[in-house]
């Protein structure tokens, strides 16, 4: 059962990473246009380099 001493902190840490990532996406306005973003990846424009 000693393995729990590692596993529980790891699971908590991974959950925390997920939460932080989500908070980051909210703060950087990544949910403003979900439908448009889903379509934009199909477009050929800006495939080679990111939009300035």
């Amino acid at each position, binding site marked *: 059962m000693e393995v729990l001493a590692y596993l529980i902190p790891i699971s908590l840490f991974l*959950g925390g990473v997920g939460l932080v990532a989500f908070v980051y996406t909210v703060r950087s306005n990544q949910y403003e*246009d979900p*439908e448009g973003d889903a379509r934009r990846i199909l477009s050929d424009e800006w495939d080679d380099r990111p939009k300035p």
Partner: protein
Amino acid sequence: MTAEITNTAACPGCIASPAEPMRPAPKDAQIALSLPGIHCSACISTVERELNAYPGVFDARVNLTLKRAMIKAAPDIRAADLIPVLEGAGYEAHELDPGALSATQSDKAGRDLLMRLAVAGFASMNVMLLSVSVWSGATDATRDMFHWISAAIALPAIAFSAQPFFANAWSALRVRRLNMDVPIVLAILLALVTSLWETALSGEHAYFDAALTLTFFLLAGRYLDYRTRAVARSAAEELTALEVPRAVRLGNAGEEEVAVSELSVGDLILVRPGGRMPVDGQIVSGQSELDRSLLTGETLPVFAPEGLNVSAGEVNLTGPLTIRATAVGEDTSLHRMADLVAIAESGRSRYTSLADKAAKLYAPGVHILAALSFVGWYIYSGDIRTALNIAAAVLIITCPCALGLAVPAVTTAASGRLFRNGMLIKDATALERLAEIDMVVFDKTGTLTSGTPELTNLADHAHADLEIALALAAASSHPLSVALTKSATGAGIKAADVRNVTEVPGYGTEGEYHGQRVRLGRAAWTGGDERSQTSAWLSVGDQAPVAFLFSDSLRPGAAKAVQAFRDAGKDVVLISGDTEGAVEDLAGRLGIQSWMAQALPQDKAARVTELSNQGRKVLMVGDGLNDTAALAAAHVSISPASALDAARVASDIVLLGNDLSPIADACDTAVKATRRIRENFRIATVYNVIAVPLAVAGLATPLIAALAMSTSSITVSLNALRLR
């Protein structure tokens, strides 16, 4: 844009400090356009390419979810310059008010709910992981440790994410009332307290996971609900007001542009052709024609000589007019019309939504059930710990997870579907009310018809006459001239060589053709006879004048919408302020049996109220100021985006595009949506009927609670998704 928002948000001092008189240097223009027609990735790239190619536009970005484009451009670029560009590419566009827009962009409440939702979600995942280990056989010290870790996660997470429920429940309790949030808060708190107690005594069952999943599912429902409503409300507010915000005042120093609110009685105001009257007044100089369709529904332009009284909201068509203001602000006829709306709205019976009805039954029921099982078990076993555990289990299992999702999930799906068809639901209960209608009342001008005239007798004229008429019409921006030009050029006619063409405001255009005087204009001026139908006359020299007849063109989809309503067995009525002939003609064209002409705004509202009193559920579709009171009086109302501000405010649903046909589909969707809501309530009830007896009998475990809660919430959401 993003940077600006974060900067202001990061600096509370900037907001707190008194606003300094800022004189911004000519800043880049921020333009927002509503694009009801876009739907795919090709649309995105076409619109962005067209806009970016326009000189002066720095950056344009389309938001497909909100169906709008945000444009950064040089200061002198206006939305009116860009709309024709997009229309040329085949996309309908309307200007949005960027001022109202900035308020919704930094959507604090929505973000706040989303954060709480995320915290509840991640916390419940972690706790669920620990709980599963307990359910699958962890015992003794291991189980206690897992429970303590769960508690350490659950307590702070709930303290943060369940705050909206605490606040709502508290405000309801303070005024001694019960709402849906009271049993929710009670369930969450009781679950935490008994679980802590059990954990401290090394007990077997802890409900930390249940408390967290409960919060998570309920927050999801809240967020959906909030999003649907906030998006619709803000989008409706952003449609730029049609009322003129500025007017040209003729002062001692010449012309000056002032805000309409600064005008006072006695001011001289210049109204250019195409402009709207900002105030009530009298014409002191100039001659023109006035379009009163938005106020009265008349399609025929009215001749406006010197001395005529004009009302705010009328549109000046041909010549510049100088008017002396006789009433400004609140006293204008525009505002008196708004008073009518207030009266109509006070008469509208308040509609109780299905969710409210459910909550009214549900909240007391749950409390009584929980209290009874507590008392019953206390009497039976004499052990307060067992009794409290069972009461908590009952509360958790009955907790309205599925009920909280039942309505928002359906309305989100339905509003999303309607939004894709170009309709905006402004009011939360509008869908439910739309599902109940059995009668549709249409306005004519601007609703069933597009308000622009169409030449009807092109074929009756000699080729030579048409060439002269086209030459004269092309020189004027009068709506009839524009219509004539459009259909004549469409028929491949070339303009004749007419010289010295001049426009005589209020009368028509005049010119010289092979030494003869030619005129195109009003009957009295050209020597024609007055007719009831909209007409323009062409006189060539001394020959008898010939008449060009016009009728109002149908709005696209109007015939389809009327037909769909008739097929669905709903009564269709046409009520208009226009003349009898015009209304009868349109009613005949669309196959509407029941119609009423020359209706004053009061008549319209009175008719709608009368119908409602007879027990009919009326859907009113209208756009003019004269419809506003009727829109407010009807059971549910729809207005097109081109409608006057007041009409859009008074209606529950706004039609974004030009096409009327989505209205009939909307009724269909609304009926389906209410059916789904009722189904969802039934599904939620079935789960309760199965799980509650177990809980009351003391057989419920945290595992059963988690299963019941999750499966019912998921079934309800899936059922709602069938609407999309």
